Structures are given as C-alpha cells and as structure tokens.
C-alpha cells in the first residue's frame, strides 16, 4: 500500500501534506505533554518495531507466505496518537532508506497507514471490547475485527486517492497523466483485495499478537494505562 512517486498528481499530494502537517503537529504536542522525556526513546523503539513487523513472514494457506502491516496492533497497544508518529517515522525511514513509497507521497502514505489505520483500529477495538475483562476472548475478537476493518478502510482511502487522479490531471485530449483508472475501478479493486486477502491476514496477526500480550503483559496496553491514570487521579481527589 506504499504509494510511490508519480502515482499521485501535485494537487492530491500537496493537499495531503496540508492535511498531515497539523495532524503531526497536534500529535507531537499531545505526546510531549503526556510522555515528556520518555517521548524520544518510546517513539524510536515503536517506530523500529513498526518497521520490522513487516519482516515477519507468516505462513498462509496454499504454502505461500505473507506479512502484516501492523498499523492496527500498534494503534491498540500505543494509542492512536503515539501510533501516528511511530508509524510515520517508520514510513519516512522506508521512503528515505529503501525507496519504498515516494517522497512526494509521504504525506498520503502517512495519512492512510499512520492515521486512518491506528485510529480506526483503536476505536473499533474499544467499541467492541467495551467494559469486558482485559483477558476476555471478546477482546481478541475485537482486535481481529479492528485489524481487518482498519486495513480495509486504509485501502479504500488509497483507492479513493488513486481514483480521483484522472479527474484532476489529464491532457487536453483527456489522456490521464498520473494514475489512469477512475474511482469505479480503483476503489473496488483496493477494497476487494483487502477484504478477502490481506485484511484477513492482518486480522489474524493482530489477534495473535493481542492474545500473546493478554497472556504475558497487559500493562503495556494504552487503554489500560489511561484507565489506571484515571483511577489514581480519582483516588487522589478522594484522599
């Protein structure tokens, strides 16, 4: 889902930069008050993790292998705002070090994978898991649905960005200059591919990682930390 340079025309990618800059700015402000001096090491390690999660090959039916994007589990574990920065840093690294994803398209890629994915995942997970016990199996299902839905939504956004290219940029004769296919091709193509294929893998991987965290160390989950902070604040005001 990494969009390379030359796929999106200037109107789209400049618009994406204009959308992303305030999001990055706000996320940075929010994190620096929440995490203070912890910010740099936590985000650096989280970004490194977002980078390496794609190295894990998972066996899939048919003897082939695939890998997860990881935006969903990172959103659930770190919280959506920290995930924005961590995944963005990982995406910038990929673009600068390996040419994976374009420079002009960094903002668009960050929007799809570092904003849409963790936010959808985190809120879907929260909504489905509701007030259940942290170790309940409902939360595993919640994380699976979050993984599936977040990747599909991100894919739909990518498809939409592709699909508006022929409307925005074409020569006088109507020959498209960038991504040539219209919305009724790109959006269904991206969604289908992810609903039936990559989305299922993402759901599986998200659920497996979540189940492992449930068994070993639930204190790292962002939702739990927020709840604990609220509790301690309440007890402090009562005392």
């Amino acid at each position, binding site marked *: 889902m990494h969009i390379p340079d030359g796929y999106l025309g200037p109107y789209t990618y400049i618009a994406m930069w204009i959308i992303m800059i305030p999001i990055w700015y706000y996320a940075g402000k929010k994190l620096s008050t929440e995490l203070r001096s912890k910010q740099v090491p936590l985000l650096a390690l989280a970004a490194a993790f977002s980078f390496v999660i794609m190295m894990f090959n998972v066996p899939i039916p048919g003897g082939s292998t695939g890998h997860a994007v990881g935006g969903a589990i990172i959103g659930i574990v770190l919280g959506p705002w920290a995930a924005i920065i961590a995944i963005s840093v990982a995406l910038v690294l990929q673009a600068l070090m390996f040419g994976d994803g374009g420079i002009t398209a960094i903002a668009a890629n960050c929007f799809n994978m570092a904003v849409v994915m963790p936010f959808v995942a985190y809120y879907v997970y929260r909504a489905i898991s509701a007030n259940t016990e942290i170790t309940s199996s409902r939360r595993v299902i919640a994380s699976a649905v979050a993984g599936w839905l977040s990747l599909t939504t991100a894919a739909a956004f990518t498809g939409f960005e592709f699909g508006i290219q022929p409307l925005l940029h074409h020569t006088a004769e109507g020959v498209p200059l960038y991504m040539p*296919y219209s919305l009724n091709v790109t959006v269904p193509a991206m969604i289908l591919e992810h609903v039936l294929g990559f989305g299922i893998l993402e759901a599986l991987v998200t659920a497996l990682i979540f189940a492992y965290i449930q068994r070993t160390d639930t204190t790292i989950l962002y939702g739990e930390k927020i709840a604990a902070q609220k509790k301690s604040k309440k007890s402090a005001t009562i005392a």
Partner: protein
Amino acid sequence: MIPDWMKDVDASPCKCSATRHGKKGFVGKTIDGIFGFLEEAFVSETYSKKNGLLQSLDARAKLVSILAVIFATSMIGDLRILIFVYLLTLLFSFLSQIPVLFFIKRVWLFIPVFAGIIALPMIFNIFIPGDPLLPVLTLGPGAHLGPFSLPEDIYITSQGVNAAIIFTVRVAACVSAVVLLFLTTPQQILFKSLRTVGVPKIYVLTLEMAYRYIFLLMDLIREMYIAKKARTIRARGMLEEQKWVGGRMGYTLIRSIDMSEKVHMAMMSRGFSGEVKIMQEFKMQSRDYAAGAMAISLGVVLVLISHGVLRV
C-alpha cells in the same frame, strides 16, 4: 589516530547471505529477508563513502536539490523532459562512482512490480480511448466483464502507449533521484539534513534512534527464526505455526517497549532532560549553494517548458 588502511572501505557490494538450502518456508523467507535488508543497508553505506560528485556535496544542499528535482518531475507531463531527467540521474550516478548497471538494476527492480501492473492495461482502448495502433481481439457488440461493458474491438492505442510510457518513466525518474540521494549520503547525515526542510529536532533524533534500533530488532528476529529452524524436524500445522509467529511478534513488541524504558533511564542518567540538542557538523561551501541553486532552477525551467510557458 586511526591508520589509513583501517579507514579504507571495501566498496564492492558483497553477498552476505548464505541461506541457500532447499525449499523455503516462512522461516527461510524471513531469514532471507533480514539478510537482504542488512546487505542493502551495507551496500548503500559503502557507496556513500566513495569519493564521487554527489558524495562531496553538503548533505543539506543535496537534499534540497534532489527534492526540487523530484517535485519538478512529479509535475512534468512531457515525455522528452522526463527521459532527460532520467538520463540525468544516470549521469549523476556515473559521476558519483555508482556503477550505472547496478544503479539501473536497483531502480528497476521494484518498478515493474507496481508500475508495470498499472501501466500495462493502460495501453488498451478499454481505459484510454484513442487511435488504434495494433488490434488485439474482436469481442463483438454487447461484451462485458462483470459490471463493466467492453468495447467491440480491443486494440492497443497510441495514446494509451504514450500515457503508459510517461507514467513509467516518471516513476523511474523519481525513484532514481531518491535512490541517488540515499546511496550517496550516510544515514546519520541524511537524517540531520532533514532539519533544513523543517523537520523538528525531536523527530530527527527519533529517526536516528529508530534507525539504530531497527538493526537490533532485526537481529532479535533473526535469532528467533534461526533458533526455530535449528530445532525443527517436521513442520507443525498451519495454525500452530501462525500462533508461533504471532507470539514472536508480540514478544518483540513487548521487548521493544520494555527496552524503551531502559533506554530512557539510561538517557536520563546521562543527563538527558527531554531537550534535544543536535551537533551541527555541516559546512556549506559556495559550490553547495551553486548546486542547490542549479537544481532548483533546473526544476523550475523543466516545469515551465513542460507546461508550454517556455519554448525551446
């Protein structure tokens, strides 16, 4: 003092990987992927230390120049100018002592996979109507594929071929420019140079640290997979194996968050207060300014020619 022979860099890319053993499952592929990553990082490191034209430029001037070229290229719609930009990147790779063949291979390695899939259907009249160049097949009236109705005759159009070539060459030119940038700049200097385009200090530091810890985490993963490989006699069921991978990912995630706490404490105990300071070791010379100015004006001129404002 470090003796000169120790500073010498073995410039030829080496094959670090020694993982040829039969059919590759998900374990073998992961180990291969990690070796591939390390090799690539190593190769770009060796080229960035060669004594070429782009290596000798100041990183900030180089970053701004390459960005100017990429942004200009993304706005050019004229095939001849795009080919000119692509040839220019080849010339610069030659002047920067990067073997041109290696450079072409490096760029085109991943272009066909993505751009090819997109560009190939463009040449037919299904997507871009135009003058027929080569008939492919006749479907007859009323043919359709799923919800899409198809034209009576399918043929390759000259407009379609033209659009597909423009699309592919533009992607190639942009990718070449980025590859040039990271092949000729050592990572830590490249990150620092991001300050010039307005990236806040705190993210420059985060990028630098993330880059370093990627190698540590990669090593962790490699060890887990090699340990599994070494102890595996027969593969278990699919779900069992998937569970294993999920667990290892979860473990890596917990490890990295745990490690961030330790790194934080280590930084605090060495006087880190949350305020980021970055050493400035850049020296802009007049040739760096000249290079930046030339690249920017080249970009502007090419865009103007492409849009018909300037005539050659």
